[in-house]
Every structure is written in C-alpha cells, then in structure tokens.
C-alpha cells in the first residue's frame, strides 16, 4: 500500500480520526455491555477531565508522563526501531532522579537540583536502553524482545534495590525517604499567577516536556543526526550505502529514546511523589506506544495525543467515582482499542478511502 494515493490531509488527518472514532465506538459498546449509558459516561469523562481547574491540572499531569514516553517511542520509530522498553527505562530513570534529589535536597534550592535530576534520569534511562540497542546493532538480537526482557529485569532490580539497598531504613514501605524542598519541583498552580489547579500535581516537568518536544523536533528534522536516523529508518540498506554507520545510528537512537523515557521519572518522582517508590511507572511506558502511534511520531501530534490520554486517565478516575460499575480498567480497555485501531488496524479503512477518492478523481484525470 503506497503513499500518494490519497491527499495528505486524508492520510494525516482523516484516517487517524476515523480510527479513533472506531476505537471509541467499540468502547461505547463495552459500556453498553456492562449496562451503563455511553452518553452519560462521555459526559462525566469530559467534565471530569476538562470541566474544572483541578481536573485540567490532573489531565496535564498525566499528559506530561505521556509526552515523555510518547516521544521516546517516536524517536525510535523514526529509525525503524520499536522500543517497547519505555516502562523499564522510565523505572530505572527514577534512580537518577532520586540520586540527585537525595544528595542535593538539603543543600540547594530546586532549580539547582533540577538539572542534575534531568541529567540523572536521562543517563539512567539511556543506559538501560543502551544494552538492547547495542545488542540489536552488533548481534542482531531483536530490540522488541530484548526491551520486553529488560522491562522485567528492571522491575525485579528496582524491587530489590528499594527493599534491600536504598529503601528508607525502618520503613515497612519499599521506598526512599521523602525529599525536602530542594528536591521538589514547584507545582504550576503555585508559580503561574491566576491559575488554580487545586491539588493537582501538575508541575514544572510539563515545561520540560514541552521543551523536549521542541528538542526532538529539532533533532529529527533539523540536524544531521536526525537525517541519519530518518534515512536509516526509511531504508537501512540505502542508508548504509550512503555512508551512515548503522551501529552508531541504532545505539544513539536507542539511547535518546531511553533517555526521554527515563525523564518521565522527573514528573512522578521529583514533581509529584517526592520519593522513589516501587511501580511508579504503572503502564505509562506502554501508553507511550499508543501516544506515538496516534501522534504519528510527530511532536505536535504527540502533545495532542498525550492530552487525549491524560483526559482519559483523569476522566476515567472521575468516571469510576461517579459510575462505580465503570472501573478504572475501562481506561485500559480504551487504550487497547486505540492501539488496535490506530496502530494494528491502521490500514483497515484505507482501501475504502482510496476507492472513494479514486472514483472522485478519475473523471478529472480523464478530462485532463
């Protein structure tokens, strides 16, 4: 199925929209199946996520996580790599954030700690993605499988570290001590005048996430490395023939991807929880796949998709409160359907559209 058969706006706008509508349509059927009203569910969901300041705050807080993990998946996509290890990379990234905060929080204010935390998160995430990237590049071990394995290894490692090594002594919970002021990012509700996000933990990380979007856009479309990444993704053989070093491209791409995933930990650990605890990633890494797919691996698309998923998370929480029969698991179902329709079944509606547009264009072509 080649490109160019359809106008650009159909490819980039209409098809994703149709896929999304299909996913939500099936989600509506699930809601009917458990005996609730989909219309009411949608109303609660939208009101819960956008209807009041605190709701918007939570939506943006979740969106921050999804921007980072979505960008991580997207960067790897551009090189034709599928990094589904965002989950593990973000988890390990938490180590870097916690290290910076635990060492510095008593000594310096947050804006001094922050660059170290960012660097720590990115380095740890990148390190965790390095091995799968290196093995893919040099030994041909498929990066999908190795990153899955590394997710599980990360989970075991983090439980071990938090229980036996870095966990707070004397505490029954497997977590570090709580950071003091110097290890906490300010909440946006406190630093932006006239904005009230209530108790929502949306914090300075959102600004970092938006900066990361600009950074990724510059990297992919405005630098030599980005050109190499895209060339390699489009056609590895041609790229190698043109003199692009495949090992270097794969390893660097995976490390950038891992670093972005790792930075998700800033939002959770330094921005909201103020301590390192087990399972703080809880699926955000996987949702990044859906976000990148829906956002077509472009930063603008990713921000929009991340906000949509943020709405689902926050609205879903509100939904399970208002309509107890629709538990938070409904969000997981919707995510699954979005991944299915926007990702795996991406081409399902395409032949129909091609036929539709071909029949419209044919008379014009004959006349011309």
């Amino acid at each position, binding site marked *: 199925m080649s490109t160019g058969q359809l106008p650009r706006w159909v490819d980039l706008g209409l098809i994703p929209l149709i896929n999304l509508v299909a996913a939500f349509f099936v989600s509506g059927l*699930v809601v009917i199946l458990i005996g609730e009203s989909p219309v009411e569910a949608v109303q609660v969901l939208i009101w819960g996520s956008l209807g009041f300041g605190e709701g918007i705050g939570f939506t943006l807080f979740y969106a921050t996580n999804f921007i980072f993990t979505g960008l991580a998946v997207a960067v790897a996509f551009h090189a034709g790599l599928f990094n589904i290890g965002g989950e593990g990379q973000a988890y390990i990234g938490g180590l870097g954030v916690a290290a910076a905060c635990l060492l510095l929080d008593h000594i310096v204010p947050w804006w001094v700690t922050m660059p170290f935390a960012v660097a720590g998160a990115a380095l740890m995430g990148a390190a965790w993605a390095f091995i799968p990237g290196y093995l893919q590049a040099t030994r041909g*071990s498929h990066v999908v499988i190795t990153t899955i394995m590394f997710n599980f290894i990360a989970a075991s490692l983090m439980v071990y570290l938090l229980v036996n090594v870095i966990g707070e002594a004397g505490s029954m919970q497997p977590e570090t001590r709580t950071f003091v002021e110097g290890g906490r990012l300010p909440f946006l509700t406190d630093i932006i005048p006239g904005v009230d996000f209530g108790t929502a933990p949306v914090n300075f990380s959102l600004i970092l996430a938006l900066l990361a979007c600009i950074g990724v856009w510059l990297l992919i479309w405005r630098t030599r490395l980005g050109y190499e990444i895209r060339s390699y993704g489009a056609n590895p053989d041609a790229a190698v023939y043109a003199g692009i070093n495949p090992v270097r491209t794969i390893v660097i791409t995976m490390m950038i991807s891992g670093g972005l995933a790792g930075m998700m930990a800033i939002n959770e650990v330094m921005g909201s929880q103020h301590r390192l605890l087990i399972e703080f990633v809880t699926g955000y890494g996987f949702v990044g796949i859906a976000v990148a797919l829906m956002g077509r691996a472009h930063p603008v698309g990713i921000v929009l998709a991340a906000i949509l998923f943020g709405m689902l998370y926050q609205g879903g929480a509100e939904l399970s409160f208002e309509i107890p029969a629709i538990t938070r698991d409904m969000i997981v179902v919707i995510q699954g359907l979005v991944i299915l329709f926007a990702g795996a079944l991406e081409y399902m509606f395409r032949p129909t559209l091609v036929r539709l547009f071909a029949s419209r264009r044919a008379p014009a072509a004959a006349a011309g």
Partner: protein
Amino acid sequence: MFETFILLLDSTVRLSTPLLLACLAGLYSERAGIVDIGLEGKMLGAAFGAGAVGYLSGNAWVGLMAGIGVSVGLALIHGFASITNRGNQIVSGVAINFLAAGLTALLGQSWFNQGGRTPTLSQGGRFQNIELPFAEALRDVPVIGPIYSELLSGHNILVYAAFAAVPLTWWVLFRTRFGLRLRAVGENPAAVDTAGISVVWLRYRAVIVCGMLCGLAGSYLSIAQSAGFIVNMTAGKGFIALAALIFAKWRPGYAMFACLLFGFLDALAIRLQGQELPGIGEIPVQFFQALPYILTVILLAGFIGKAVPPKAAGVPYLKERT
C-alpha cells in the same frame, strides 16, 4: 534430601505447565511467520473465561471450552490485524494484552462484584488431580516409589496434556504436510503461494491453534491450579513463555526443557525464600524472577548458541503490489 528434591521437581512440573502450553502456542504462530507478544493477553482472557464459565456451569470442561473460546477470539483479532490487514504484529500484540487486562478486570467486577475476581469454584468446576494406577501401592518402594507416586502421579489432566502436546507438536510440524507448509510459510511465504497454497488461510490456522493452546494455558491457571480467576493472574507468564520460545530456538523439544528450566527457577525461588545458603547467604527472590529474562537476553546476544527466528516472522505477506 531426596524427598525435598522430588517435591521441588513436583512443583516444577506444576509451574512449567502453563509456560509450556503458551510456549507451544507461540511456536505454532511464530513458525508460521506471525510474531505473537499477545500470549500474555490470550492466557489472561482464557483464565477469565474459564473461571467465569466454570463457576456458572460448575463444570470444568465447559469452563475449559469457554477459556479456549475467548483465547481463540483474541487470536482471531490478532490474525485479522496482522494477516488480513497486514498491520504491525507487535502493535497488535500490545493491543491484545491491553484489551485482555482491561476487559477481564472490568467485566469481572461488573458481573461478580468481588474486585475483579470470580467466585471460588465448586469441586466440579475444577480439574481434579488424577491418581495414576498403583500410585498408592508403589509409594513405599525406594527411589521409584516417590518418583512415580509424587512426581508423575497426582497432577490434573491439563498437565499431562501439556507434556503430551510436545511430541504431538513435533510430529505435526515435522512429519505432516500441514506442518511442512506451516514452517514454509514462516520462512518463505512467496514460495508457498507459488505452490498454490493459500498463505492467508495457512496463517489463520496457525493463529487459531495458537489461540487454542493459550486457552489451555490460561484455563489451567484459573480452573486447575487455582479455584477461580483473580485480576492479572498471568503476571507475566506469557512473556516468560515468549522468552522460553526464543530460548528453545523455536523447537518443540527444546521448548519443553526451556519451560522446565524456567519453572524450576520459579520453584527454587519459592523454596529458597528467606533461607540462608551455606557460603552464599540469602539469594534475593528477585534474582530468580529476573533470571529467565537475563538468560534469554544472553542467549539472544548469541553467547549460548544462536537463536535465529523464522525468516518471515513479523513480515506481512503482500501478494502483489497494488
């Protein structure tokens, strides 16, 4: 000492069974060129279907049929996405895992109101352990007695089915026409197509067999090993099975040994929990949990032989350019 070892092997067999069934499921699919990281989701769906219907009907066999039905349904979604629509097989697998995780918990809560669990099954709703003939009589015979009556006897029917499926899978794949074609379609679908055999139908059959075996694996968890479904009861077993499949280099016999090895590690971890080993100290349980994945990565890196997947695995087949 010997007694302890037999008990350890006994729990190894119990823990390996779901891995083995799921691993063989993945084998059929991947040998036909359809990568399946949705084993986990299909197992979970089957566990829920079997648990729910097993409870409602009070009959283990009816529950098993429901489990297989759910799993095959999910397998067909995967097939529709990756064969008919030539979508990305990894993405489709991820979607299946999400769908199963969400739907089982959501529907479980909505139907049974026990936090996503199904109610505890009655005796009839579960598969009972089978005593092999003479198991009691031979119990006191040294060496052979414990091996026969503890290790080989006293499992439920799905355990025996799983181990019987190993030679059966070997025979199907390497001694039948269907198996030859199935392997061919995973290596070079164009050649199969040229021979006048439908690539699409062949791959669909492989995916359906995969769904059936995952159905057995998931049902084992909820209506044989335990007495009901609990939320996320697969807990990564589908991914361990995937690791075992790679570890076994996509071969049935090796698959059995890989699953027994991973099952043994699991059993050992439970056994050694909180115990000091002489000279080593206490080995953290997380080490054993991570070991199957670490071993698989080392294998994938080519340090223990080389794991070469079927050549066309993950590549959608396109008959002609449109």
